[in-house]
Structures are given as structure tokens and as C-alpha cells.
């Protein structure tokens, strides 16, 4: 027990220290490295909080994809900060802000520690209904059955984000290949990794999705691994996405949400309502939704990571 407590304290203190470093670092690059380390520490904290599903998401999406995105942005911004010295608040203002933020933290911490006991919980309800979904992982049950509306909206949010990112493309580049024009990479190590790793990553990513029905994992975590493998091959110049204007690409992005909505509408006729599953087909329908979602999540994440088109096709 004591060893566990020590581990928790060490993890918590490291996370706070790295967060402070991220805010205080001189250069953006250092801050981003701090942020990636922060994400990895946070995923260890998630494991300690008993939720491996969230730990996988944090490591893959927060630290992994988020880190790649921010490092890429910082490299492309170079030394230009898009801000001037006069934009930084004066010292007394910073001190006052710091004090108020500390006050907020203190109040929040006190509120969290004085939450009512026993804590309200939907765990018994989830346990009682898990058998009906034939899933073994309660988190997947929540995501795909009882709170399917949230998950559907999230999938739609990814589509909207892709539209948003594309919409900042310049007029001259609109309709072209997404992402910056790829300079030929002459890095042998990256090229080799991009030739060998993606197939293995595909197997691991699909496994994470498939095992998500009964164990930690699922469409978001597995989809991120699949997206990462494609981005790796893209960085090495081995693959190219279709143009933004191609119908194929647009169909890929919306396949997941459309399948989800179609199966949800089916529930209006065959079960209790929108997004309800007919009892006899619950598990197969969930698997179909999950497969379609994985594919579209992976495509959307790739497009979000590589950004809007920047050169005419």
C-alpha cells in the first residue's frame, strides 16, 4: 500500500513539475517536448486510476498525435512567434494572474476532496446491462451502446474538424493534395522504418480495435495507430493522399458516421428508437459500427495531422 502511494505521489509530482516546465520553458520547442512527456506521465496516472482504455487514448492521441502535430507546427513556424514583446502582460499583472490561478486550483482541489461519499456511480447499472451487449469491456459498452449519441457526435466532430482544417487552405491550393508539398526525404533511417513498420502497425492497430470489445482498446485507440502508420509512410515520401477534391477521399471521411447513423435509424424501426440495437443483433451491429468508425477515424486523423492543401495539384 505504501509503495503504491509513493508511486502515485511521484507520478503526480512529476506531472505537475513537467506541466510547470511546459508553461515556463523559454522556447516553444522545449515546451512541446515537455507537453509530450506530460502526456506520457498522465497515461501512467490513468493506469493507476484503473482505466487502461483512457491510458491508451491519452498515449496515442494526446501525447502521440498531439505531439507530432505541435512539433510539426513549431518547426514550420520557425523562430517567428507571431507575437510581440508588448503582448506579454507586465510583471504585476502576471503575479496577480498567478495568485488568482493558485486560488482557483486550491478551491478546485478542496471541492474535489470534499465530494460526497459514497460516490454516485453508474457502474452497477453498466454491469447489469453489459451482458445484453455481449461485450466484455464496459467502456466500449458505454461508448457504443448506452451513450452512443456522444460517440456519434464525436465522430461527426472529427468530420467537422477536417472541414474546418481544409477551409483554411489558400484559394490557389484549394482542391489540391492535402498537406505541405513533400520535399524528397533523404533520411535512410526514416525511409527504412516507413517500409517495415506500417504492416506490423496495421496488425497491432486492428488488434487494439478488435480486442476493445472485451478488453481495453477500441476504435479511437486502434484508429490512431493506423493513422500513425500512414503518416509515417507519408513522412518518408512513400505514399500520397488523394486530392481534397476527390470524391473517394470525401466518402472515406464520412463512412463511419454515416454507417453509425444508418444503423441508428434502423433502431427506430426494429428496436426502441434511434441508436437502439435490435436485441438479437446487438453484437454484430456494434462490430460493424466499430469497424466503420475505425476506418473513418483513421482517415480523419491523418487529414487533421497533415493539414490543409498548400500547393495546387
Amino acid at each position, binding site marked *: 500500500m505504501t509503495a503504491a502511494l509513493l508511486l502515485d505521489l511521484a507520478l503526480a509530482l512529476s506531472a505537475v513539475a513537467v506541466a510547470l516546465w511546459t508553461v515556463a520553458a523559454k522556447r516553444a520547442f522545449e515546451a512541446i517536448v515537455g507537453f509530450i512527456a506530460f502526456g506520457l506521465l498522465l497515461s501512467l496516472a490513468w493506469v493507476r486510476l484503473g482505466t487502461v482504455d483512457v491510458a491508451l487514448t491519452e498515449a496515442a492521441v494526446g501525447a502521440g498525435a498531439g505531439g507530432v502535430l505541435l512539433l510539426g507546427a513549431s518547426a514550420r513556424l520557425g523562430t517567428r512567434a507571431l507575437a510581440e514583446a508588448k503582448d506579454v502582460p507586465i510583471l504585476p499583472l502576471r503575479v496577480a494572474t498567478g495568485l488568482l490561478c493558485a486560488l482557483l486550483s486550491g478551491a478546485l482541489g478542496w471541492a474535489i476532496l470534499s465530494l460526497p461519499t459514497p460516490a454516485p456511480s453508474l457502474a452497477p447499472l453498466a454491469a447489469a446491462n453489459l451482458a445484453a451487449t455481449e461485450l466484455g469491456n464496459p467502456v466500449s459498452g458505454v461508448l457504443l451502446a448506452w451513450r452512443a449519441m456522444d460517440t456519434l457526435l464525436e465522430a461527426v466532430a472529427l468530420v467537422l474538424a477536417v472541414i474546418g482544417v481544409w477551409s483554411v487552405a489558400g484559394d490557389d491550393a484549394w482542391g489540391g493534395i492535402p498537406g505541405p508539398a513533400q520535399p524528397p526525404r533523404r*533520411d*535512410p*533511417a526514416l525511409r527504412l522504418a516507413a517500409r517495415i*513498420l506500417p504492416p506490423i502497425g496495421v496488425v497491432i492497430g486492428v488488434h487494439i480495435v478488435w480486442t476493445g470489445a472485451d478488453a481495453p482498446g477500441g476504435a479511437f485507440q486502434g484508429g490512431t495507430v493506423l493513422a500513425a502508420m500512414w503518416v509515417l509512410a507519408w513522412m518518408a515520401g512513400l505514399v500520397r493522399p488523394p486530392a481534397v477534391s476527390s470524391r473517394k477521399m470525401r466518402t472515406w471521411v464520412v463512412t463511419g458516421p454515416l454507417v453509425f447513423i444508418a444503423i441508428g435509424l434502423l433502431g427506430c424501426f426494429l428496436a426502441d428508437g434511434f441508436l437502439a440495437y435490435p436485441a438479437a443483433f446487438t453484437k454484430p451491429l456494434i462490430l460493424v459500427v466499430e469497424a466503420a468508425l475505425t476506418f473513418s477515424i483513421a482517415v480523419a486523423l491523418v487529414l487533421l495531422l497533415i493539414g490543409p492543401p498548400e500547393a495546387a495539384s
Partner: protein
Amino acid sequence: MSLLADAFTVVAVLAGLFFLAAGTLGLLRFPDPLSRLHALTKADGLGLGLIVLGLMPQAGSLLGALKLLLIWALAMFAGGTVGQMIARVARRDAS
């Protein structure tokens, strides 16, 4: 037999921890970025390998042990790849 396996685990994991510590020491003490990369790719790779070796008897099944070995192989490959990429940039910055 299980006592023997446990003893093996303890020895191998401790040896692994020693090499991780030595790698960190090298990271702090070596004079230039390229030498520090040696500490990361080689000593840490060996440290992880020894920990994996030590945990293999505890995996409970052949597949579990092979899974640990796969993790080590992927970590070594990633280490070799990223080490070279950083080395390339570090050399360019130095010259």
C-alpha cells in the same frame, strides 16, 4: 523450479536497471550530443532487453513471453531509427 525462475527474474531485472542507470549516467556525462545518443540507444536498449528477459519466465505462457520479445524488438528498431535521425540533425548543427 519456480524459486529458480524467480531468482533469475530478480537478477536479470536488476542487471537491466543497472544498464538503464548507466545509460542515464552516460547521457549526463558524455561530452557531445552524438556520444549521448550512444548511451540512449545502446545502454537503454540492453537495459530494456534484460528486463524483458527477466520477465519472460513470469509471463505464464510461451505467447506471453514472445509478446515481451516482440516489444523489445520494436523498441530496439525504433531506438536505432530515431537515434540515427537525431544524430543526423545533431551532426549538421555541430558543423
